[in-house]
């Protein structure tokens, strides 16, 4: 086969023209990069000066420095420049709530709220080319395909300002053709927490599970609805009866988050308890284990006084996540709970369940800790003992164990320490004693030597006293150092 040899002159001329184009293109790209840097630095300085000139600084606004003359000057600014000056201030609203009120007033007077609301409805205020070129992003106003950026920013601004009256427009924006606008509108609605928007958000949730990829993510919707107060929980009832398990689970999760945030004993708990009792009972026997797990957690958070049958149902569930979820929720509750019902789970076959039970017992206060000590002394399971010590350590209870050491010869703490010393598992105790706060305790324990504590503990305390610094832990710990090994 003879391959064609392309004409050399053709190739040469083609290569020359491509080379020339590429070289020019490279130089042009390099020039654009340099010009952009120069322009950006210059623009930054200009904006800084403008902000100072118009008093558009957080401190200036909080002191109410903007006068009618200042307002008139601001009104005279081109719309893109005005927005550019205001937007960084809006971003500071979440960290400085009083600023939101001041800015809301200023934006209303300048007509910006109206501009943003109209933009969300697709009505853009005309901007001349000259006005647009006053800021780097001004040309966005002329590219309709990029208008979604302006709409999304408008939605964000209304949310940042907590402009309550904008909720209908923001709700409408949940069906915007662009995903970004929908997403930002959702976050703004979560910030407004307007009760009337909940049905629309639940409708979006329905859409999220039925029309895959079409709308908002289920996570965003859950996160937004979880921002609402518990007083809006009634509106979740239809979602709890939804045929799709993801929606049922999400509704229970939202309820859990609402309950978590509400102060314990708030009227909302009593108001809705009877309503949700039945719903949660139904969800606690749901076919989907994830729904059962979340329902158990939600029930634990709602029944803050005494674990209800729903929570107990969660305890007895065959699926590990359900048991874990119920116990974890109990551990997070501020009210003491009967440890009797938790203790059996310390011997659960699943580690995560045991861990959750340990934490739930610790949350029960003094009584729960005593049960933990009893279990520690009773069990033959080395793994469980280690888990108990680990949890005591994480909860910062090792020092209190030592503080009560030797108060009476037969007290639980003394027995636990004795057991730990017998096992040679004193690393964590030693660390607690050699910390700054533990040193005083060690001194007082050494003073009490041979008064109450058993000889084994005395010997161990003397060994601890020989430690010089916590960094020598590897030299001082019992047995050969694992690190050295």
């Amino acid at each position, binding site marked *: 086969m003879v*391959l064609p*040899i392309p004409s*050399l002159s053709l190739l*040469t001329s083609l*290569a020359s023209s*491509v*080379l020339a184009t*590429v*070289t020019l293109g*490279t130089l042009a*790209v*390099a020039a*654009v*990069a*340099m010009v*952009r*840097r*120069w322009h950006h*630095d210059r623009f930054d300085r200009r904006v800084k000066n403008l902000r100072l000139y118009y008093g558009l600084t957080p401190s200036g606004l909080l002191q109410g420095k903007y006068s009618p003359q200042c307002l008139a000057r601001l009104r005279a600014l081109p719309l893109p420049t005005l927005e550019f000056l205001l937007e960084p201030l809006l971003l500071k609203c979440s960290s400085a709530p009083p600023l939101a009120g001041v800015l809301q007033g200023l934006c209303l007077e300048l007509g910006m709220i109206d501009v943003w609301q109209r933009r969300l409805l697709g009505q853009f205020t005309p901007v001349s080319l000259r006005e647009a070129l006053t800021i780097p*992003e001004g040309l966005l106003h002329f590219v309709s395909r990029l208008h979604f*950026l302006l709409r*999304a*920013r408008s*939605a*964000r601004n209304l949310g940042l300002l907590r402009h309550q009256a904008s909720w209908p427009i923001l709700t409408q924006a949940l069906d915007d053709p662009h*995903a*970004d606008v929908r*997403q*930002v509108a959702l*976050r703004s609605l*979560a910030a407004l927490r307007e009760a009337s928007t909940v049905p629309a958000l639940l409708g979006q949730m329905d859409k*999220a599970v039925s029309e*895959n*990829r079409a709308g*908002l*993510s*289920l*996570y*965003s919707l*859950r*996160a937004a609805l*979880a921002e609402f107060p518990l007083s809006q929980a009634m509106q979740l009832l239809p979602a709890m009866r939804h045929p799709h398990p993801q929606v049922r689970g999400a509704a229970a*999760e939202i309820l859990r*988050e609402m309950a*978590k945030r509400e102060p314990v004993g708030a009227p909302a708990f009593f108001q809705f308890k009877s309503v949700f009792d039945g719903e949660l009972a139904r969800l606690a026997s749901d076919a989907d284990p994830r729904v059962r797990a979340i329902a158990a957690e939600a029930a634990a958070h709602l029944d803050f006084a005494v674990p209800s049958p729903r929570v107990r149902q969660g305890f007895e569930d065959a699926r590990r996540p359900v048991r874990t979820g119920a116990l974890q929720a109990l551990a997070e509750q501020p009210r003491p709970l009967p440890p009797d019902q938790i203790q059996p789970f310390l011997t659960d076959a699943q580690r995560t369940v045991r861990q959750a039970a340990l934490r739930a017992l610790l949350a029960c206060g003094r009584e729960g800790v005593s049960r933990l000590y009893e279990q520690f002394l009773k069990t033959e399971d080395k*793994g469980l003992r*280690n888990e108990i*010590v*680990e949890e005591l350590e*994480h909860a*910062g209870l090792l020092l209190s164990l030592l503080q009560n050491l030797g108060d009476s010869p037969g007290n639980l703490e003394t027995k636990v320490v004795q057991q730990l010393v017998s096992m040679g*598992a004193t690393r*964590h105790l030693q*660390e607690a004693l050699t910390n700054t706060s533990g040193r005083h305790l060690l001194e007082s324990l050494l003073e009490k030597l041979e008064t109450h504590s058993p000889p084994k503990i005395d010997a161990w305390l003397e060994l601890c006293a020989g430690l010089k610094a916590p*960094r020598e832990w*590897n030299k001082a*710990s019992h047995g050969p150092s*694992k*690190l050295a*090994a």
Partner: protein
Amino acid sequence: MDMWGPYCEQALVFFNLLILSYFVLGNGVYTGLMVMSLRAIWLHSRRSAYQGLAELRASSLTPAVTIIVPAWNEERIIVETVRSALAVDYPRFSVIVVDDGSTDSTLKRLATAFRLLPAELEYHPVLPTSPARSFYSNPHIPHLLVVHKERGGKPDALNTGINLCRTPYFCCLDADCILEREALLRLMDPILNSPREIIVSGGIVRIINGSIGSNGQIVKVGLPRTALERFQVVEYLRSFLTGRNGWSLLGGTVIVSGALALFQHKAVMEVGGFSADTVTEDMDLIITLRHWAANNRADAGFAFTSDPVCWTECPATFSMLNRQRRRWQLGLCQSLRKHRAMLFRRRYGMVGLFSLPFHLYVEALGTIVEFLGYLLVPLSFFGGLISPALLILFILLGLAYGGFLSVGAVLLEEMTYRRYPRPRDLLVLLAYAMLENVGYRQLILFFRVQGILKFLVGSHRWEKVIHEGQNLSSGPTELTPAAAHSNQGR
């Protein structure tokens, strides 16, 4: 011409046409990727104005993440890496450092810096790994766990971390990387806000050389001093801002840097974790997940965003750079061979039809073509097949086009993130972008050819790159209130 037989002449012509096709296809695709990236990165940087990171940070529904740091003989930087991981701005996370049988003082340094104590943990591996010898923790940093295990290689160390991971997502972080504070939030953002189920979210890697760090964070970004390192800065910009971003837009991502990537735990467990079949376990896992997703979960997505950043130290010597590039090339060839069944298969979509074939032709075979080109094009010239003018033009065109792509990547950086604040840095970057194709490209090509030779002889050695150690001064470990009081994710 008389000295050449007709077959030799035809072979040379054929080869010249092959080089031309390689040149046109490679540069054409890269130009396309650059144009797409330009638009996407520009849009992404504009979108960041309304990105809901604050909401993600504040929400109790944001899923917990485990940061897995596999380490082997990383005594120079490991403390800073862990410090940066602990300082990450994320609501619930834990850090698992897996010391893969280091023979230096990696473990000792960690123990000293974080005041670690031996911990008793029950380790029941689901993914098979070499045995874990011991565990270390500090009650005051409850979300840090250090595992000391027998040497088993990086994939094995990662799998140990995955076995210990109790969170729905985990983030791989190389032991020589410094994670930016918001990186994890930025990686999680596309996962949570996409209506699709995203199983991998990748970020970009930048070069730390020349920057100044303190307490696990970069405090001043600067350019390195040597030309070798500066060329790598330009190369990383081109690779991450142009290449990976473009492939992600096309839905053809096959490489997400293992230095910084967030994975769905469940999906990775399904495919059996990281595999030791190749020396680039990150690329291998991504292609395996692609394969699995196509066969089982068509809706699983792969995200890449250009603002989650981790900083890594690039090799400062020729020998270390050679090791790194040899390994990358060897890994690429191994991954392509392992997943050859996906090539040209419609079932695997863009990956099977375009991305993998492109990587095979341009990135793997193209290396040989380019290398031979440097030998055979001059031969064609001496044989009278190419005129002197055409030869010079062709060489200049190759250099100019390469320069164009690199300068374009610098422009992308300038238009978006502008991480190098000094105007002088921009000028230096532009100069190095233009010069990158004169000498540096050929050097890298030489290293890559060595990688291919290693592949051909069946080598499977993971070559360790030893770093110089950068200016990352570390003070005493400061426990933030979050670190001291939370039991995040564990």
